[in-house]
């Protein structure tokens, strides 16, 4: 829960007050409720599960139950000031489609993800020879949702190849609190990107 809070603060720093924000994979609306309280944003979330939409509705967060790409395709260019994709990108069936679509409907896109290149993950894989399980990814392979173990290097390559401009990047150490400026792909546990179209 503490890790979640750090995450929310940085994401919040990139959100302009009173703007229109879309959260992809909004869950029960924790982040959007926080942004509504702290930044007075007009928030919209999208998630697949009824129970999460119901949780959003209960706390006054607008939320749409359904596929995020379908939702985004229903909006004109730059309808949102910012789209947020926090800890969702690794579970997407078509991450590229989602990211490019998010950069169409949003003036800016925040992407936050757990760095699978973090040294502990590498060591665990190297020595254990089994699917990495840690504080964030606690489940065994047979009870986990399908996930792309994306790394910071992977993500940087992707942005460069698709002409996506990185306005800000924040790499956090394994404790998800301290900055990690050095060798982030090896030493950072968590990465946050503030992206725009080039």
């Amino acid at each position: 829960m503490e890790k979640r809070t750090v995450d929310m603060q940085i994401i919040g720093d990139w959100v302009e007050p009173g703007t229109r924000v879309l959260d992809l994979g909004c869950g029960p609306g924790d982040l959007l409720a926080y942004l509504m309280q702290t930044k007075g944003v007009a928030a919209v979330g999208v998630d697949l599960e009824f129970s999460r939409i119901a949780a959003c509705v209960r706390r006054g967060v607008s939320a749409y139950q359904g596929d995020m790409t379908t939702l985004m395709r229903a909006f004109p260019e730059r309808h949102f000031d910012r789209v947020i994709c926090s800890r969702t990108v690794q579970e997407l069936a078509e991450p590229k489609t989602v990211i490019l679509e998010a950069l169409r409907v949003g003036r800016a896109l925040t992407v936050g993800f757990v760095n699978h290149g973090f040294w502990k993950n590498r060591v665990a894989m190297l020595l254990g020879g089994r699917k990495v399980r840690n504080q964030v990814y606690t489940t065994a392979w047979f009870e986990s949702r399908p996930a792309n173990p994306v790394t910071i290097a992977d993500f940087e390559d992707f942005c460069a190849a698709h002409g996506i401009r990185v306005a800000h990047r924040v790499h956090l150490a394994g404790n998800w609190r301290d900055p990690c400026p050095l060798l982030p792909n090896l030493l950072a546990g968590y990465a946050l990107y503030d992206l725009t179209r080039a």
Partner: protein
Amino acid sequence: MTDDVEAAPSAPTAARHLAPGDVGLVAPRDFVHAAPFTFRGGQVLPGVSLRYETYGELNAARDNAIVICHALSGDHHCAGWHSPSDRKAGWWNNLIGPGKAVDTRRFFVVCANVLGGCQGSTGPSSPSPASGQPYGAAFPPVTIPDMVRAQRLLLDHLGVAAVHAVIGGSMGGMLALQFAIEYPRLVRRVLAMATTGRESAQAIAFNEVGRQAIMQDPAWNRGDYALGEGPRVGLAIARMMAHITYLSDASMDRKFGRRKRRAAETEASAFDLQFEVEGYLRHQGQSFINRFDANSYLYITRALDQFDLEEASGSLEAAFAPVEAETLVVGFTSDWLFPPEQNRALALALLRAGKRASYAELATDLGHDSFLLESEELYALVRGFLDRAALPAP
């Protein structure tokens, strides 16, 4: 909506109306608007009246009203019991009552029979002041906005200053949306379920078959028939057909399958009643003709077909531009009459228009009538939507 598919199983005791969580015994009232009422089409009636029920109390601020809007064949009796010997409670009794999702300890619930209806509100079966005979086909074409404007008069009469929420399924959802469009300052929340901003060709087609069944019945007589008479065969067939569209393949299969009536072997003709589903539909048709007016059926189905938010304003977003309410749209996966796609389109258009709107979808196999479902998930959603204090507008 159907009569009994989602109705609670009957309790064995004769004191069901005293059950905790029930509003208990209720009585309808009539609101008479003695001034001229002008319909969208320009026609004027010298006065209209609406039959309605209320549950709970209007608070001092007069802002705790919840308006319930019924579907095509529904009425104002949405909760409680008219007498201890009633076979069934009001049609949304599972949702409305003290401590229920629509909590009558907190809210002042109002439900009126629609203008053009036949359960006590002014409609084609009402006597025309000129002749004393039923209006019949001389009744003005009624629209969803007309129904909403008439209900607004009732709310004014009751002293309602702000509507906490308008709730409706199917046609009731259309009314709820229209309420928010027409009276943005009045309506704070809209909960629209299993509905649409415009019927598809298929939905219009089903309504047309129903209307043809009525109008091809010689007893219809161009809408001119005495009370209690009229196109009973045509109306029953219209109801049987429409009833199928409220269910689903899966729910009908579960309820009836291919089970046959025991008497089937002894029937004289190959086309007499054989399957249970046939008996069920015939019963639905027969019970409908005893409580519904064929002309009302024509008028209201026409109002449904004519309802088109897109056409009225150029686009759904433009239609929703005046809305100030927070909206929750609920679709049901097995609803093939007003399918999830059409419900989603409403929420998306509201969001495109910059409004606060949510879309939730329940996986059910009960078809269009799923909105009447006894579902803790649905109750929790409704309760959560209604209970939260209103947020400041963005």
